[in-house]
């Protein structure tokens, strides 16, 4: 497959693995957090951990938008979707995300809610055009990458003068979450786990560029290497991080230069800032309230804001107290450290955020990597 196979070449991978092995000083650990779920998935799917030396450890961050969506927001969507006048349009991977008490959009659909899976925002607009007598709500979710399509959709709705269309906005931002992780007490004060550097987002950075990470790298003294999602991209990014750590540098470097620039996609950023503004805070599953990390529609677009249009009340749901997702997302614990992992919490019946999507740390480990736990147990 052109433009993909080139970045999955085994020989080059083994060469990079060797360079990483010789470059990483045996005496010290290298703990890198890959922020994005796409990176987590690539690590697991291609078995990258097998190619890294023991002292280079990857910590799976919170960059899976489905995973970090709090259960209360799902409950809000379910409550809305149960109204007979509503058609709720969602991306497919949201369907199984657990709300409170085992509820999900999939189960709501089985009970009669009109919930449609869509693959693009344009499809949601089309559904609104085809159903003028119904209210069509798009469940908008995602990081900076999926926000521009939502903005475009609102523009389209405006142009087509669609009166029956609105958006339940759950868009979140990457840099505030990265900052939140490093500022959390168990990282900063207790110092149980150090994060020596970050593999920065791929697709998110195509939109926002590399500049937003510069303050972060400087302030926290941690290197950030923006990396593509292909396995060779990741190997190269890890090597770049190892080198920065060795040389005591903490810069923003761009491995994904074939798609990412310093300033990002100006047109997309403009569209987003025209239509959206920051929320004071937004809840992340596993991280709690994170200041200035979520977006809502500006007042001028309030008629497209489903939360205002339907008077949706904010619902709060506490996570299962035994669930370790928060600690796993911050790299303090591993999936196997959680009592729920693989017992009551599996991809079929996820309890916590990390098990929800295949990009979550727990689901990726369960789906692709759990054989290693048994190998380790046997070896010890």
């Amino acid at each position, binding site marked *: 497959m052109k433009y993909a196979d080139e970045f999955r070449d*085994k020989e080059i991978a083994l060469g990079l693995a060797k360079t990483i092995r010789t470059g990483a000083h045996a005496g010290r650990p290298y703990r890198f957090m890959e922020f994005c779920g796409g990176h987590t998935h690539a690590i697991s*799917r291609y078995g990258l951990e097998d190619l890294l030396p023991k002292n280079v450890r990857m910590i799976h961050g919170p960059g899976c938008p489905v995973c970090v969506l709090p259960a209360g927001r799902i409950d809000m969507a379910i409550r809305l979707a149960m109204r007979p006048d509503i058609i709720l349009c969602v991306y497919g991977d949201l369907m199984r995300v657990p709300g409170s008490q085992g509820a999900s959009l999939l189960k709501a659909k089985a009970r009669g809610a009109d919930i449609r899976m869509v693959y693009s925002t344009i499809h949601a607009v089309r559904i609104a055009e085809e159903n003028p007598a119904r209210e069509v709500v798009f469940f908008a979710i995602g990081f900076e990458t999926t926000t521009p399509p939502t903005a475009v959709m609102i523009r389209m709705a405006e142009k087509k003068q669609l009166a029956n269309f609105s958006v339940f906005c759950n868009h979140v931002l990457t840099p505030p979450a990265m900052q939140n992780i490093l500022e959390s007490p168990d990282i900063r004060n207790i110092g149980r786990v150090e994060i020596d550097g970050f593999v920065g987002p791929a697709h998110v950075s195509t939109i926002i560029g590399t500049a937003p990470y510069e303050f972060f790298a400087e302030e926290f003294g941690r290197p950030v290497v923006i990396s593509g999602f292909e396995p060779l991209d990741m190997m190269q990014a890890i090597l770049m991080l190892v080198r920065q750590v060795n040389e005591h540098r903490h810069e923003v470097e761009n491995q994904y230069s074939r798609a990412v620039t310093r300033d990002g996609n100006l047109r997309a950023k403009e569209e987003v800032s025209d239509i959206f503004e920051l929320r004071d805070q937004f809840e992340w599953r596993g991280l709690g309230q994170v200041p200035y990390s979520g977006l809502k529609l500006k007042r001028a677009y309030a008629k497209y804001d489903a939360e205002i249009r339907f008077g949706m009340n904010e619902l709060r749901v506490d996570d299962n107290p035994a669930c370790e997702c928060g600690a796993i997302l911050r790299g303090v614990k591993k999936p196997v450290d959680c009592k729920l992992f693989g017992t009551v919490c599996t991809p079929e019946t996820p309890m916590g955020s990390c098990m929800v999507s295949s990009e979550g740390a727990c689901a990726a480990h369960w789906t692709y990597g759990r054989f290693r736990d048994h190998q380790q147990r046997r070896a010890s």
Partner: protein
Amino acid sequence: MKAYQRKLDIRNGCVDLSHGSGGRAMAQLISGLFHEAFGNEWLARGNDQSAFDVGAGRMVMTTDGYVVSPLFFPGGNIGSLAVHGTVNDIAMAGAKPLYLSASFIIEEGFRFADLKLIAESMGQAARDAGVHIITGDTKVVELGKADGLFISTAGVGIVPDGLDLSAENARVGDRVLISGTLGDHGVAIMSKRQNLAFETEIVSDSAALNDLVARMVEAGGRGIRLMRDPTRGGLAATLNEIARQSDVGFHLQEEAIPVKPGVAAACELLGLDPLHVANEGKLVAIVAPEVAGAVLAAMRAHPLGRDAADIGQAVADDHHFVQMATSFGGGRIVDWLSGEQLPRIC
């Protein structure tokens, strides 16, 4: 005297509730459309059942339902799929399929022309596979109570002497063979789904595998432990099932698994794993290592096994993991598909 006053208007007509009511209209639909398409001596006798002779030995029986959407897809339709699927379920026992039944649940308003096309491809698929559809049933339901057409089938076949293929038979050291490229059917269906439509040259692999199986049994005899057709859930589900039932694990080589570039690209785009995508004309065979070479050669000599490959082996593993060495050089699990990848693909 003519049996019916007016012929079925195949070109413009459609099924209405009278065609399921047991009256003259139903009789006309059955004789004018289904008997015509399936044409055989058993149906011609017009009984509510068909009698046939059985030889000595063991028989197999299977049943299956077909609810695929869309009804027509690149490489086939619900009719050919129903015959292939049923024949393959019988063939996976190493058996020779003989007779099928077919029951049709039709939504009112369904076009005769489409029904005729579907029935004709069933008849053709049956003739090609050397089986006969010898009994059937027709029901019509109100508009909105079924998605056009559902078909359910049953089939019987006869097992060669001494052969006992079963899912608990895999042994440590056995080889895993597959008959060709993975994921073709699932991707062909997805490419035609409303809201998902994309352009691809991939057609469904829907095919009857009984002849391929017969050649494999000739070559491998009792060295063939078991066979499965990896339909819904793909190769991943099939191997995980076998691992559990046989109390073994599997080690696969990703590089050895054939996937068409178009299928790989579509999966990449949709975020799917080809190992989870459905097939309708492929089989997995677990065979003793000493016959693996001969069975693989027999497969490759058959048109439906041209791309056959040896993709790995059964290993001792209490956890029944299906592990794979990735073509990138790492290792990973090939797990069951979680949740629903795409409903109604067969």
